[in-house]
């Protein structure tokens, strides 16, 4: 299966994968147009709550075709844009 938006670079240096993740967060968690730093904690910024994590996981599974098992639902995998992108890239790379 081909990943729909993996690691293709773009002019502003943002991968399509990161753009998709940022788009999802902006659309669903209402950031009032604020630019979110790639390493900013989504939970500490109040962006993600327990419901938001469920929605994020569903988005990642549906959009990128990866499975996010319970044991992977850790802050180091999901608590910033950079971490999410890195996690999804890892899952895609390892099938």
């Amino acid at each position, binding site marked *: 299966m081909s990943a729909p938006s993996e690691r293709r670079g773009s002019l502003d240096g943002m991968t399509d994968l990161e753009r998709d993740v940022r788009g999802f967060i902006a659309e669903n968690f209402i950031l009032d147009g604020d630019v979110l730093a790639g390493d900013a904690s989504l939970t500490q910024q109040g962006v993600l709550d*327990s419901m938001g994590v469920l929605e994020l996981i569903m988005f990642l599974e549906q959009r990128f075709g990866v499975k996010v098992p319970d044991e992977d*639902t*850790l*802050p180091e995998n999901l608590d910033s844009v950079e971490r999410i992108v890195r996690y999804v890239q890892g899952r895609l790379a390892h099938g």
Partner: protein
Amino acid sequence: MADAPRVGFEALRLADPEATAAALADALRAAARGFRRRGGVLGLSGGIDSSVVAALAARAFGPEQVLGVLMPETDSSDDTLRLSRLAADACGIPTLLEDITPILDAAGCYRRRDDAFRKVLPAYGPGWKAKIVLPSVVDSDAFRLFSVVALDPDGREHRARLTSEAYLEVVAATNFKQRTRKMLEYHHADRLNFVVLGTPNRLEYDQGFFVKNGDGAADVKPIAHLYKSQVYQLAEALGVPDEIRSRPPTTDTYAMPQSQEEFYFSLPYDRMDLCLYAVDRGLPPESVADALELGPEQVARVFGDIAAKRRVAAYLHAAPMLLDGSAA
């Protein structure tokens, strides 16, 4: 940095539970008088909180000026009615039985809930029992994701992680229960010219463990400032029966027995109380770690969970917003 002050469970002790009960009864009577109402209605669940509020109300208004409404439904525990009557008898208040199952059935509560369960457990159907659970916050940094645990008619257990859609639909459906009960409480309050008494304790009130416009609605909340441990002390002073005081708190919302820790709180109530006490006073995790027999990093996770629940509770506490148009 100086060592953090150490705080133990003794910090939660009421100095004089009898005096607290007397003062609360006076305040409750004054509050009702302020609303020009002459008594109180409350829903009795057989739990510690409603039993204490019933006893306080009996003191405040006299037992005949209090009505305890018993509102079981098909998923209620077998003990609910018996313990509710036990609480009412102990303080002498009259009770009224309103089985809310037909109302819930007509509203589609069970059908909507079961449809939502089937989104993650397709085999779920008649004869199954289920509940929603959360993993422990203490044991791991992992995000806490809701799962459904179900028993099929043959007694086999099934478990599946809920999607956000299924979770919201299950909660929205089961919230009919609390809102139906509140509707009936207000019906009886209106016809009797009584106030509706809310029964949340401080832990529940602070952390949003209630349904907006359901059990979160009331005219007076007499114990919402008291930690749950203090409610137990008050219960003893008010003569709430032993059986009720020794029963572990449950949600009594799903067909499978569900503890409050499985569904909402990180720790059993007395330990949650101590964490909330520390958070309320700006104390660091180290201050209560010894008493809780947890590591500071585990306590820090509980503190983080308390802060997260407060963010969610802000919506539940909010009164309707009035927009004056000045921004237009």
